[in-house]
């Protein structure tokens, strides 16, 4: 099963679709968690996900706003989607009839 941070990256990449790349995924994760996302953690986790076959990455085109640098594009694989879905269901099951409340 994937970890919490891996799940955050998988769901951000899935939400972004064809526009999923390093900086965009980082923004999505920061917005979702309202915490700073380390770029080092992001890229090492992406490597791990790639090694597990959960995502595919490739170098995309360079854009002027990136100072002519290429993007590292990300796509969630079928296996990645299944793993993320499995993690989500597990969290939902674990949270059943638990009311955390707003203490």
């Amino acid at each position: 099963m994937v970890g919490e941070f891996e799940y955050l990256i998988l769901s951000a990449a899935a939400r972004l679709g064809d526009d999923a790349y390093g900086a965009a995924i980082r923004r999505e994760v920061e917005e979702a968690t309202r915490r700073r996302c380390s770029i080092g953690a992001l890229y090492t986790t992406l490597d791990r996900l790639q090694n597990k076959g959960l995502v595919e990455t490739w170098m995309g085109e360079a854009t002027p706003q990136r100072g002519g640098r290429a993007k590292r594009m990300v796509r969630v694989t079928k296996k990645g989607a299944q793993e993320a879905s499995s993690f989500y269901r597990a969290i939902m099951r674990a949270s059943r009839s638990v009311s955390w409340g707003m203490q």
Partner: protein
Amino acid sequence: MTRWVIPRSILNIWVARASRMLEPEDREALCGDLAESGVSGFDALCDVMDLVIRRQVASLREVRPWLLLTLLAIPLGFLLSVISRETADGSAIYLWLYTDNWNLDLARTLGYWRALAECLPSVYLSGSALVCSSLAAGLLIGTIVRRGRWLSTVGLITVLLCAGTLGVPHELRFILTLGRARDYSEMPLCLPIRSTERYIHKFLRCSFACCLLFMEQTRHPSRASSTHGSVSNVDRIRDIGGALVSQSSSWWFLHLGTNGP
């Protein structure tokens, strides 16, 4: 209390320097992300160093860097240590003789300049061989070891320092220098082509040329674009190495021509 503030321009130079420790694709993606997010200065430096450290730590978990350290960096460190020590021994004697005894009276004698002219090619050759050996070793490690390069670099420097300070066992010296020690004992020094020069010529003609050829062959086509600074630097160093080889070879032939059998 005075607060030290490092100018942003200097921090950005550090960011650029630190990002060179990353693989070309990582560097490209990371620098692009930083530019797009508008992150610069200290925050950018922290981000780059974060990834660099994570990458280096991750590479230590693999077998390949340790294998290359054992099979490549440590033997090369010993070899370089032997070569540098012998170069220093040979050159130091000549240089000490000519510099320590130098005075105006001696400088007026023709014999002094003649003897100096005779020893200079040898000093130059051994120095060139040392430079070429170091270049070849560094480039070889840099070409073969992609991830975990720092482990090999640290290993090489540690071996160089330890072997340079503590010395290398005679048996190991014999193996590393391909029987050079035996050449010394069997060949009288009065012979015009001494074993040192024979070794240097052999190294410059064969080993160094083979190293350069190997590096040329193993260069990946996708890395050939000039966008990656490391490749252009390798090309530049290789050009310098090639120039040194050709120059050193011509010096050797010149030396052989004047003192040949």
